[in-house]
């Protein structure tokens, strides 16, 4: 399983990289970040880019910093760095927890946050995190940068709102106060998730205030569980509410079946993990106070 041939460049600036994407647009160019998703596809010859633009030498795409109430993460930041970052642990614990579920250490040593989001695997964890966090993804193209809301970023399985000549440069995560939980069901430890849930919940006294839920594994992309959020907002933070919300979330969904789970099983798992995610997030919100 060897990859097909391609032309290759490792530019040192973002402008250069974008320029290459434009210049070689006929050759099916692709951007290479950590390669943990792309290179396996190339080994299977399911992806055959004619031109690979390696971002490893491009300056300015890594790093974690604050800007007011927003955590800004460079797209080429390795997942292992996110995992080890005290800043991420404090400011975006949902992200920190989710990263721990992404494959194994060797994959996280190479994989990048931008690469994972741009790849948009429907089973991946980070898209759900960005959806729940109302994150903004910054893309740079020949005509400049633009911010794309997470809610508009994931357009389908392995499909994003990025134009062919755009590169993801930054992820902007608004900070949450309150409880978080990332939970997922996988068959083998650290394998891809059958379903996953990202949950954020703030408490006002005993009642749930602001809440955000995103689910993977039940639709062509990760989705916000808005029906569940409506059930939860203002409701009492207890097991009954959590169960009701979980039930509301799965109504009307028709997930695709595969060899690992039928549609019915996916819905059951989603219900279970939504419930568990909500309970964990609210219990953490309670403990924070």
């Amino acid at each position: 399983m060897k990859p097909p041939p391609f032309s290759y460049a490792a530019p040192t600036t973002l402008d250069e990289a974008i320029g290459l994407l434009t210049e070689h647009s006929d050759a099916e160019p692709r951007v290479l970040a950590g390669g943990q998703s792309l290179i396996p596809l190339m080994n299977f010859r399911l992806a055959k880019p004619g031109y690979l633009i390696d971002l490893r030498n491009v300056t300015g795409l890594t790093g974690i910093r604050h800007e007011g109430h927003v955590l800004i993460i460079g797209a080429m930041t390795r997942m292992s760095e996110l995992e080890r970052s005290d800043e991420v642990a404090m400011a975006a614990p949902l992200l920190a927890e989710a990263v721990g579920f992404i494959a194994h250490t060797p994959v996280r040593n190479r994989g990048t946050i931008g690469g994972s989001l741009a790849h948009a695997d429907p089973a991946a964890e980070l898209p759900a995190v960005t959806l729940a966090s109302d994150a903004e993804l910054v893309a740079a193209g020949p005509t400049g940068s633009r911010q794309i809301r997470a809610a508009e970023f994931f357009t389908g399985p392995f499909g994003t709102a990025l134009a062919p000549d755009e590169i993801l440069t930054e992820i902007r995560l608004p900070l949450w106060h309150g409880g978080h939980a990332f939970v997922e069901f996988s068959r083998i430890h650290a394998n891809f998730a059958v379903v996953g849930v990202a949950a954020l919940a703030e408490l006002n006294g005993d009642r749930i205030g602001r809440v955000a839920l995103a689910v993977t594994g039940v639709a062509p992309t990760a989705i916000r569980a808005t029906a569940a959020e409506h059930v939860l907002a203002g409701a009492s933070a207890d097991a009954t509410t959590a169960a009701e919300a979980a039930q509301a979330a799965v109504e009307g969904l028709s997930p695709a079946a595969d060899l690992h789970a039928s549609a019915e099983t996916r819905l059951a798992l989603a219900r279970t993990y939504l419930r568990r995610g909500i309970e964990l997030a609210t219990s953490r919100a309670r403990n924070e106070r």
Partner: protein
Amino acid sequence: MAPTTCTITVTVNGQPHVAEVEPRRLLVDFLREDLGLPGTHIGCEQGVCGTCTILLNGASIRSCITLAVQADGAEISTVEGLARDGELHPLQDEFAAKQGLQCGYCTPGMLMRACEILAENPDPTPAEVRSAIASNLCRCTGYQFIIEAVISAAARMRATKEVAS
């Protein structure tokens, strides 16, 4: 389209190498065939089994889903660099002592991953080791004696460090 090549500089087990590689050449093939270091093995070529694990700048990576060009400028450690002056690394010796290998095919990857595990946590519990080596599949041992070997090696390495310091 004639294949073009890139010039890369990599240090492997302390030895610098300059080489011309096709951009598509996988790092594992570069190490095994171009540098004559067949100790790193190929299991799945999709980054799942961990058989091809090596250290790149001290961090474990899967060399079957890494291009050689991506390793330009890096320091790589493979199993061939573990033994020094004919003496086995404590991990290697403990794998033998505890029979942490049967067919030996996953062993180089396991050893390199174990190096990283112990570098990050010199005194792990068996549960921590078990969780950490979940990154590397083994089809022969059922993992138990591998975990025992890593724990024993960790103790030896801590003792050596204490003696040294």
